[in-house]
């Protein structure tokens, strides 16, 4: 996989420009954190990235998670792999999951501490549990690139760290919009600060401290 590049990307709602023009190049194997106050354009940038790099098959974890509340945790996670199977196989799975898929997904749920909820409809879960289901879905999807919007916003403490570790281990290259600056610095290699739809800061994480990011907020 060659490097991922955006050149002069813009996004507009009607006539109002909310993003760009901005250019950004991602090296393969890089974990990038997008930081900035809410409304700065992080989600829009992720959405633009998803559109531009669609042919690379990125996994997407949107801020509103995009889970189906009436389906079980298992089925929501399985949805990450829908495109790997035939339509009929997916229909049968909807009625009765195959054992090998359960075997594939169960360890993932165990790792994220939600194995006991495997057959519970997602609509009945708490916010933190839902976020872990969405992460499990993204991990189950697999691939080279992950685009995640606030993946741990509903979690705190060790659970948030555990999930960050799981996501960054599963994907060699990832762009994660983050509001927790400490976590961003610990789990990513590079921090891109967004302000008013443009890049205000772009540094390796090692060179930054939480103090350096304060002006962005």
């Amino acid at each position, binding site marked *: 996989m060659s490097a991922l590049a955006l050149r002069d990307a813009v996004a507009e709602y009607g006539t109002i420009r909310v993003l760009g023009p901005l250019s950004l190049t991602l090296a393969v194997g890089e974990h990038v954190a997008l930081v900035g106050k809410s409304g700065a354009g992080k989600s829009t940038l992720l959405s633009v990235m998803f*559109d531009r790099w669609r042919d690379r098959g990125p996994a*997407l974890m949107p801020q509103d998670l*995009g889970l189906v509340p*009436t389906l079980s945790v298992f089925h929501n996670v399985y*949805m990450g792999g829908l495109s790997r199977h035939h339509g009929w196989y*997916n*229909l049968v799975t*909807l009625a009765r999951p195959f054992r090998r898929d359960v075997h594939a997904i169960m360890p993932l749920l165990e790792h994220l501490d939600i194995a006991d909820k495997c057959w519970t409809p997602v609509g009945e879960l708490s916010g933190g549990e839902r976020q872990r289901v969405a992460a499990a879905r993204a991990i189950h999807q697999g691939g080279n690139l992950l685009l995640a919007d606030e993946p741990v916003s509903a979690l705190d403490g060790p659970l948030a760290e555990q999930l960050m570790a799981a996501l960054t281990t599963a994907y060699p290259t990832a762009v994660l919009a983050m509001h927790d600056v400490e976590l961003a610095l610990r789990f990513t290699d590079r921090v891109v600060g967004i302000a008013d739809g443009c890049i205000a800061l772009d540094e390796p994480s090692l060179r930054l401290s939480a103090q350096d990011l304060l002006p962005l907020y």
Partner: protein
Amino acid sequence: MWQSATVRTSLGFIALAIACAFFADFQISTQAPWQELGRLMLGLVMPDFLAVDFLGEALLRTLAFAFVGVGLGAFTGLLLALVFHSAWVRTGCAFVRAIHELFWALIFLQFFGLHPLTGVLAIAIPYAGIFAKVYAEILDETDPQPARVLPQGSGRVSGLAFTRLSQAWPHLVNYTSYRLECGLRSSAVLGFVGMPTLGYYLESAFAQGLYGSVGALLILFYVLIATLKLWVRPRLLPFYLLAAPFLLGSGLPIVWSNVSRFFTQDIVPTPLRNGEGISGLMTWLLDLMTTQALPGIWNTLLLTQIALVITGTLAMMLFPLISRHFTGRISGTLGHVALVVMRSTPEYLLAFILLQLWGPSMLPAVVALALHNGGIIAHLVGQRSNQLTLRQDAPRGLDRYAYEVAPRVYGPFLALLFYRWEIIMRETAILGILGIATLGFYVDSAIQEIRFDRALVLILITALLNIGVDILARRLRSRLRLRHTATSEP
């Protein structure tokens, strides 16, 4: 997935319908059913608009009866909605709306004869019951806070107008305009029992084999309903409402002696009229139950359950036609047209047509019920699906349907289907008038034999059956925790 209560309930219904199908009678008894259908299609493709005077009259009368009936029903319904907390009003409304417009028409025909009042009351009475219930639900859903902060002594009427009514107004208008569409269908169907509306002309055109006229009538009716939003404007409404009562036609005068005879003699059970006392009444009732009511109930239930499941299946299959997650602009418009035609055709009219083509059996009834109701539910579920926002990376095609959209709309779909259950049963009973052995068949034969006492008991049984199904449906909805609001109601 099998643990889900909604899925288990659905499977129960499907199993029941399959069991019912073994007892049902599905056969095509006409000689050349497809040839007839071909002639009808030809009539639709080459309609004959030349019979202008009777086409105009058919449409004018259909409109007039709909406006007067729905207007009267809406006005009475609004008044009743304000006192809907009374158990008497609630029960009364449940009762009058459990009796189909055509049954009301058959009752009024016996003493008002072919006077316009028969048609008007046949629409206004059941509609008042429906309006009262739905208006009351809509008013209940308004925010009670504004009413609480009104200054002391604001007065009941102005308080109501400024708080609950003004909040609920858009919903009330929406619902009423939807009901006007239903009223047009009801009005058209009243023609089949002799009112001078569309159904009357349709029946005679069919009888004479004038398929060109049938096509013209149907097409004009679809156009009328499809363009409803264009010509029913708030500003024009008072004009329509004022003009409509004068356009009902004169019909035949009311013979008042008939009215008194109906109430004092005709509907009194025969054994009581002949002085046979309570024991005579019991034998009479038992005979009526075993020879007519029970077979009628059995067939009504069979047909309802089969039609309900086919309706649901059809709706879940067809809603993608108008869902933006599956269609583009052109295919979406075509889907809309298809669903408008399906839901604009009253099931009674559809059943009548199919019965002409295929001969009497349960088949035309099931197809008619499923097409009409399936079209309505598909339309509403499709609208619901358009409110969903899918992930950017949502799958396409079958996977999108099975994993993203269907699971999300299934709850609202079931709520709509259960709401429709009672309506399907009411229609099933009424289709008996066309010769399918449901309750309506026995009601109609009793009336033709001039045994109004029997007819009335059978109509009461039908009403109780409908109320029973309505209660069952409400229980199921609350057990499955299906949210159902008045405004989502068709």
